[in-house]
């Protein structure tokens, strides 16, 4: 079957703070073959049509999490979405929702990075360990409890999907709360109480209203909605029992 070249109209959001008062959409005619991703379309624009277009990208294979964009209003990875699915219609590419726009398709991610650091995303040992104790041992069943939530690539599509984060960015958000759960659920970890200081708050699990669009758009099947909402029952039980039978030293 001949891989013929077609043309698609890509409407791409532009915003250059030094010269544009507001964002606007610019249309480019992009020739493509069936194997082209939206990211390749953007790269063609930058290489051949308009070198002023700015966007993030790196691995081109859906593992680095850099190329997240809104494609026809849906958060997607540019490298994993194909122009052929939109042709012969136009395809509209914009920056991820719910983040301030830095420039063109580049969003300000400082909030996300700060929150990522704040949940202590590393194993906090239950007790100090010596090298002689050797490695942690973990059964496949113990691994299954958190493995799914460890596959997050920090692409932030879930933040673009989450209306609660969009309405109030004090909410920690789906991806980072999923990571919080990933560590709490890891049998090697002893930092649950520290992390649940955030988890038990409105900025934690209680800011979620179970819209669950985050899990729909996640390219890795992390299911952050599940990570967050399965902690609500535990948080509620802890809330009612904390004076009667406090877990650990927490008050």
């Amino acid at each position, binding site marked *: 079957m001949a891989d013929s070249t077609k043309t698609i109209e890509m409407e791409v959001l532009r915003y250059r703070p030094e010269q544009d008062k507001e964002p606007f959409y610019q249309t480019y005619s992009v020739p493509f073959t069936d194997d082209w991703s939206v990211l390749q379309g953007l790269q063609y624009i930058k290489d051949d049509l308009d070198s002023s277009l700015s966007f993030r990208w790196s691995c081109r294979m859906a593992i680095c999490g850099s190329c997240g964009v809104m494609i026809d209003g849906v958060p997607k990875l540019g490298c994993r979405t194909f122009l052929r699915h939109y042709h012969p219609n136009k395809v509209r590419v914009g920056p991820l929702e719910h983040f301030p726009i830095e420039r063109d398709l580049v969003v300000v991610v400082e909030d996300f990075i700060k929150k990522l650091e704040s949940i202590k995303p590393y194993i906090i040992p239950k007790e100090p360990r010596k090298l002689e104790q050797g490695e942690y041992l973990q059964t496949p069943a113990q691994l299954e409890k958190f493995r799914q939530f460890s596959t997050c690539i920090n692409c932030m599509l879930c933040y673009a999907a989450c209306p609660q984060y969009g309405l109030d960015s004090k909410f920690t958000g789906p991806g980072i709360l999923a990571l919080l759960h990933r560590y709490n659920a890891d049998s090697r970890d002893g930092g649950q109480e520290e992390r649940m*200081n955030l988890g038990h708050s409105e900025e934690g699990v209680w800011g979620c*209203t179970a819209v669950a669009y985050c899990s729909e758009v996640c390219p890795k099947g992390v299911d952050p909605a599940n990570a967050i909402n399965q902690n609500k029952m535990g948080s*509620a039980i802890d809330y009612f029992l904390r004076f009667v039978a406090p877990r650990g030293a927490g008050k």
Partner: protein
Amino acid sequence: MKRSNAPLVWSLFGAGGMLAALVGPALVFVTGIAVPAGILMSRDLLSYQRMTGFAHTWLGKIIILAVIVLFLWHAALRIFHMLHDFGFHAGAGAKLVCFGLPFLCTIAAAYRVLMI
């Protein structure tokens, strides 16, 4: 971080939602359609005599109170979230209406059901 008090209303929301799913449709059909229209059920099912008899028993009081109160609190949390989602950020005002009203209704219902 300040601990959220959401578990209070969330637990009532959960209980109310579960109860609404388990018995809601049946109750709506009986009280709102079947008995008033005389379909399938006798019109006497909800008669004053039978209902006061039912409300005199402790089981009856608990069931009447549970259905009314839990359904109200289930709706309270969802409506509170909807107000926020529609952009009404009245904060304390929204909380007063969304949780104050069900609270008053709970007191009123408890008082009335104990009176019978």
